[in-house]
């Protein structure tokens, strides 16, 4: 296929012996994408139906993963609880946070495997957000392999800039679990800036405002000659289109006078809310129906319903400008990224705050994946770097617990990464031989209001009077934004080190075990996949035949009708069971039984078309 030949301007490809397939992956709350170099240009890849966006939905059945993407999303209302959507918002969360978070309906959670992350309870058993994310990543890696005919050698995976250490770690784990070599975790707004700025040779101060399905980021970057320097970043990892849907859903409940909404009804309700909300991006009002209630939602009402959410995005913008010590007047361009920025309320608020119209000539859905794809090409060595360089920052302050449950900040937010910082601490009791260290992340002063990242103990301190020992604690944040911490006592050189992991996260041993499990389960997974596909094909055919009979049932003989009815009934029965081969057989059978009918319909249709055409034209074409 000519599509697969990668050529590089300047003949770089000729000099390089091996080309390795690299990709950028935007693992989104609602939609995920993969981008790779095609014909020397990084592009997002589409599936067989031409869709670039893979809905971030995974359908679980007793046998495992039934479907990923659109097919899974389509089942959300029919099989609530077993179709996991927005799993990204559950990354890095504790069981308590998931259970009380409110926005995770209709799911049930349990503690997951051992001290791994808490899990969604599905028909396939507990599946934690890392595993759900891995299923999505696997589907994208497969798409990349099928489109390019090459194995994926490495990928840059994007994360919200405002993701904390636990969320980043778990994203990395998901990729490992999917068998993907992670070249780098790249912040989503930075990736967007790259895709936008690189080709155009942009320079100046730009704001990237990224409101997706589940997360919000705002970053201020300075662009100069291929160097992208992030000056400040802010956001909210629990603010996105999902929350706007939730607000509309709450409004619907109030309007319809419904007392309660059962957990399994939530996916359907949220779909109604989502459709209305998206319609309002192009129209002044949307018709809505929920149960027996019918009404309209107009733009003004919508603006009121979501005012508090819009306001939160603008507060983050203010903070970013303040952190950078810059006035909005110094901004040269505002870039909107993420599907939810299509909402006029958002565009209006952003325009008002920055005092300029945001750019609209980029595709808000694809830029992030494309930027990641470009970075992947560079990191794997397929593309010469030239002046291209990304300089990013640490989004949240990192610190250590001190006396009185206070936080001593060691690395402040918006510090350029990679970074290493040390600070000295001392003992507070005479003869103290060990020191407990508690690493936290967040902006607040009190430990209880920050996120706990890790606890570890430095032992082997020689007994001394209080305040005499000198313990040097070093924080290192790498280019992925991941933290490791070490502590050393000066007089003895006694050392302790941790790669920070969320307390409920996985250690590498657990990851290996999961990898082994997943390999063992590969056959089951394949079967589950085959089952999902067989079911999908079967339902498509059944739907097609049903609507054909509705339209042209008159041309069916009684015997034909019986045959089709019988084949339909058997297939329907097989669908309830879990044998993909049987479903396939019966689907073929149904196809055979209805062939004659389909042929006759075709004749009818052609006949109808012919009647409308002039004979001359047809004759000419035939010659």
């Amino acid at each position, binding site marked *: 296929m000519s599509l697969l030949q990668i050529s590089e301007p300047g003949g770089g490809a000729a000099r390089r012996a091996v080309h390795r397939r690299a990709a950028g992956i935007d693992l989104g709350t609602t939609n995920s994408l993969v981008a790779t170099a095609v014909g020397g240009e990084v592009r997002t890849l589409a599936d067989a139906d031409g869709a670039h966006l893979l809905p971030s939905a995974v359908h679980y059945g007793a046998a495992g993963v039934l479907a990923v993407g659109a097919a899974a999303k389509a089942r959300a209302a029919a099989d609530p609880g077993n179709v996991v959507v927005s799993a990204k918002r559950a990354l890095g969360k504790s069981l308590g946070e998931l259970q009380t978070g409110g926005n995770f309906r209709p799911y049930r959670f349990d503690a997951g495997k051992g001290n791994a992350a808490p899990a969604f309870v599905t028909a396939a058993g507990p599946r934690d957000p890392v595993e759900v994310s891995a299923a999505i990543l696997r589907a994208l890696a497969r798409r990349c392999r099928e489109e390019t005919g090459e194995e994926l050698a490495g990928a840059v995976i994007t994360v919200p800039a405002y993701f904390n250490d636990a969320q980043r770690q778990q994203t990395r784990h998901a990729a490992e679990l999917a068998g993907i070599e992670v070249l780098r975790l790249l912040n989503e707004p930075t990736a967007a800036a790259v895709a936008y700025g690189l080709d155009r040779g942009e320079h100046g101060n730009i704001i990237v405002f990224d409101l997706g399905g589940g997360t919000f980021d705002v970053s201020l970057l300075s662009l100069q000659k291929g160097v992208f*320097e992030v000056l400040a970043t802010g956001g909210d990892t629990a603010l996105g289109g999902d929350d706007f849907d939730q607000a509309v859903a709450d409004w619907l409940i109030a309007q319809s006078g419904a007392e309660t909404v059962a957990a399994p009804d939530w996916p359907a309700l949220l779909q109604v809310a989502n459709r209305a909300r998206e319609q309002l991006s192009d129209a002044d009002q949307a018709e809505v129906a929920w149960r027996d209630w019918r009404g309209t939602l107009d733009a003004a009402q919508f603006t009121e319903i979501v005012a508090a959410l819009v306001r939160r995005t603008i507060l983050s913008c203010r903070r970013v400008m*303040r952190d950078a010590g810059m006035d909005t007047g110094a901004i040269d361009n505002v870039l909107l990224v993420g599907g939810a920025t299509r909402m006029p309320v958002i565009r209006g608020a952003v325009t008002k705050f920055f005092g300029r119209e945001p750019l609209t000539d980029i595709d808000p859905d694809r830029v992030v994946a494309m930027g990641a794809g470009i970075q992947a090409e560079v990191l794997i060595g397929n593309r010469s770097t030239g002046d291209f360089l990304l300089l990013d920052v640490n989004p949240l302050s990192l610190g250590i617990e001190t006396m009185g449950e206070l936080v001593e900040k060691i690395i402040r937010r918006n510090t350029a990464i990679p970074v290493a910082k040390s600070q000295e601490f001392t003992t507070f009791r005479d003869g103290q031989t060990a020191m407990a260290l508690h690493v936290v992340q967040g902006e607040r002063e009190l430990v209880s209001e920050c996120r706990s990242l890790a606890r570890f103990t430095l032992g082997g301190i020689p007994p001394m009077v209080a305040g005499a020992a000198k313990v040097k604690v070093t924080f290192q944040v790498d280019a992925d934004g991941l933290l490791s911490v070490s502590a050393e006592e000066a007089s003895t050189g006694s050392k302790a080190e941790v790669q920070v992991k969320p307390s409920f996260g996985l250690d590498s041993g657990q990851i290996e075990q999961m990898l082994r499990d997943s390999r063992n389960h590969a056959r089951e997974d394949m079967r589950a996949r085959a089952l999902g596909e067989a079911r999908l094909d079967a339902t498509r055919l059944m739907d097609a035949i049903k609507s054909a009979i509705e339209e042209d049932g008159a041309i069916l003989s009684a015997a034909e009708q019986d045959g089709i009815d019988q084949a339909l009934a058997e297939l329907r029965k097989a669908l309830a069971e879990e044998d993909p081969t049987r479903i396939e057989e019966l689907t073929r059978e149904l196809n055979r039984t209805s062939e004659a009918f389909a042929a006759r319909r075709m004749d009818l249709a052609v006949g109808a078309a012919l009647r409308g055409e002039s004979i001359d034209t047809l004759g000419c074409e035939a010659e």
Partner: protein
Amino acid sequence: MLAIADNFFAQFALPAGFEIDSGKLNARYRELQAQVHPDRFAAAGEARRLQAIQLSSYLNEAYETLRSPLRRAGYLLRLQGIDVEQVAQSDLAPELLFEQMELRESLAELPENESAFDQLDELNRKAANRLAERQGQFVQALAGNQLEEARKLFHELQFLHKFQMEIHKKEESLESVADF
């Protein structure tokens, strides 16, 4: 990969002093990061990659130190062999303590609503003016080699900087309740 200079100023080929050409600092920083950043060594061996992280971290530390006026002042003192980590009670003149108390009180007294914004702006201006004034004195003290005086001024700068941070925090908490 990168020659480590004697001090951060030399690293960016800038004269050591409080007044600094921030455009030059930023340009040099970008040039040097382009040579050492881990992204440039993604395909290199483990040792090389580790070295890249270290050098890049070092450059970031140097850059952040010189970029912030307060940290730059502290660094200049350190280059003179003065430990700015230790603060003694005697470093804080009584007038300074009064000034601190007065500023803090005016911040604490602000109402928790929008009407506080103007007063906050006023306080911000006050703090900024005092900072500018002290910075001028600091530069003079340093030039005249009055290191003890410079050290005291540094602690005053430190205090005013911290006060500004508190103003920002207050601003943030007001914004979260106010209309705009």
